[in-house]
């Protein structure tokens, strides 16, 4: 359970990055945080693991105030995958890279080995076990950073702009990973611009603009509010725009292309 209690965060320069933000995320929820660059999305995420501490208000992770804990301690429960894998890969080989966090968290050597084996296997990285992480391709590096996080099995997984620079195949893999995380009951928080990527997951959506949360609700409702989205400079999923443009339409907006196709086809046939 993650709670923000009237959190305000101001930079030393005076710029307010978070403005009286309150929210709570229950265990097992899938939440998308959207908004333009500079709206405060990454600042919000950094507060969860204490990388930033609130100027006023408090952030609680499972009841722990983030100001009383170090980021390393909080990260045991909340795994954050940052946007740029080149900002964290440094070990001699992929095996060591995955083991790094496990050792930091104090896992015994046998468990470390077990978890490393699992992660390599699950993410299809076994062939790179002894390779240097710097020799992997962009997509593989991203996969590795996510593998590192899942190896220590945090209850909450946060993905910061996971689809940037990824091609279609890599994005599909990512969607699958998110589905897997959901099915194992993990709380998933995704910060992203990529509305088309987020839409099929039908997550809870938090819309941020200028440091405030201006909307918070299920995707199926929120994505229809064109003015709200426009004010936050967030685009609307194409299927939703289509849905709203139709004179005759079903009760709920189309989630996948095939939903739209079958509905339209059946309408055409009378």
């Amino acid at each position, binding site marked *: 359970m993650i709670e923000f209690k009237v959190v305000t965060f101001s930079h030393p320069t005076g710029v307010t990055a978070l403005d009286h933000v309150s929210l709570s995320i229950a265990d097992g929820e899938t939440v998308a945080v959207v908004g333009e660059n500079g709206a405060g999305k990454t600042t919000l995420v950094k507060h969860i693991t204490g990388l930033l501490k609130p100027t006023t208000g408090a952030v609680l992770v499972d009841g722990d105030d983030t100001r009383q804990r170090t980021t390393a301690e909080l990260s045991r429960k909340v795994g954050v995958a940052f946007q740029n894998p080149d900002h964290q890969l440094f070990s001699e080989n992929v095996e060591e890279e995955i083991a790094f966090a496990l050792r930091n968290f104090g896992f015994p050597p046998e468990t470390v080995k077990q978890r490393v084996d699992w992660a390599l296997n699950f993410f299809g990285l076994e062939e790179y076990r002894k390779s240097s992480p710097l020799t992997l391709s962009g997509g593989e590096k991203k996969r590795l950073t996510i593998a590192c996080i899942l190896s220590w099995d945090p209850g909450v997984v946060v993905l910061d702009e996971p689809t940037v620079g990824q091609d*279609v195949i890599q994005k599909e893999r990512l969607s699958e990973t998110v589905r897997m995380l959901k099915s194992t009951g993990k709380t998933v928080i995704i910060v992203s611009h990529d509305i088309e990527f987020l839409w099929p997951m039908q997550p809870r959506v938090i819309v941020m603009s200028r440091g405030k949360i201006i909307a918070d609700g299920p995707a199926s409702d929120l994505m229809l509010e064109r003015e709200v989205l426009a004010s936050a400079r967030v685009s609307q999923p194409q299927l939703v725009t289509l849905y709203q443009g139709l004179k005759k339409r079903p009760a709920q907006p189309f989630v996948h292309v095939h939903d739209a196709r079958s509905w339209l086809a059946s309408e055409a046939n009378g």
Partner: protein
Amino acid sequence: MPRILSIQNFSFRYPGAQRLAVDSFDLEVDRSEIIILAGPSGCGKSTLLRSINGLIPHMYSGDYSGAVLMDGANVREESMRALAQKVGFLFQNPENQIFMFSVERDVAFGLENLGVPREEMRRRVDEAMAQLGITHLARRAPHELSDGQKQRVALAGVLAMQPGLVILDEPTSLLDPMTASELVELVDKIRRENGTTFIVVEHRLDLLVRIADRLVVMNSGKKVLDGSCWDVLTDERAEGYGLSVPAIVKLEKGLNYHDVGTSARIPTAAQLAEEVNSRTA
């Protein structure tokens, strides 16, 4: 007048590599065209781009065969100095292509390098900044700018050199959708005002297909598809090549509303909705 770009059976292999990075590639580009170059990661796009502006072979050597002709001249034989005035290159990371401590100095960078006289340089810098809408940022330092602004500064620096062809390497990947669509609009405007030809590498096709004339797809170094955006996106092999086909296109293809999407344009969601309404009325 020769075509602005003519790639003839071009192949390239990096030193020590097993397979060809680019394999027997052919491409003809006319002036003022906007061409999207797409394909899965590792398909050779970056190599191809660098072969057009001369970084290959002038900066990177390797096994080179075939010809890349820029405005009739062979890239292999032209100097980087000459090529820099014909082909501009906007790199993916806005940060790593801005050198100077102030915006206007950076826009002038290429012109200073070429020894352009001060008056003319001033004129070209001011023009480029005006066209990109960044005149008010002239004295700012790059670290004070947003990513979108940095991209514009870099593009202004490229345009100041007045190239006939500009290459954009995933220019929107680090931008949010609104800023990205503003950049795309700018590219279209520059094409209309200057007649500049653009080759854009992008994964995010939905924005670019609105302004592009053609979509060229690469896979494992080879050209596999080349045609109008509509024709290529509706080709059944498109997704197999890692193209992110916009939902509306997928939908429309399945519905067989041929006349809505033509070779000339990709419809928006709103346009498709209108079409459906009119048909079921």
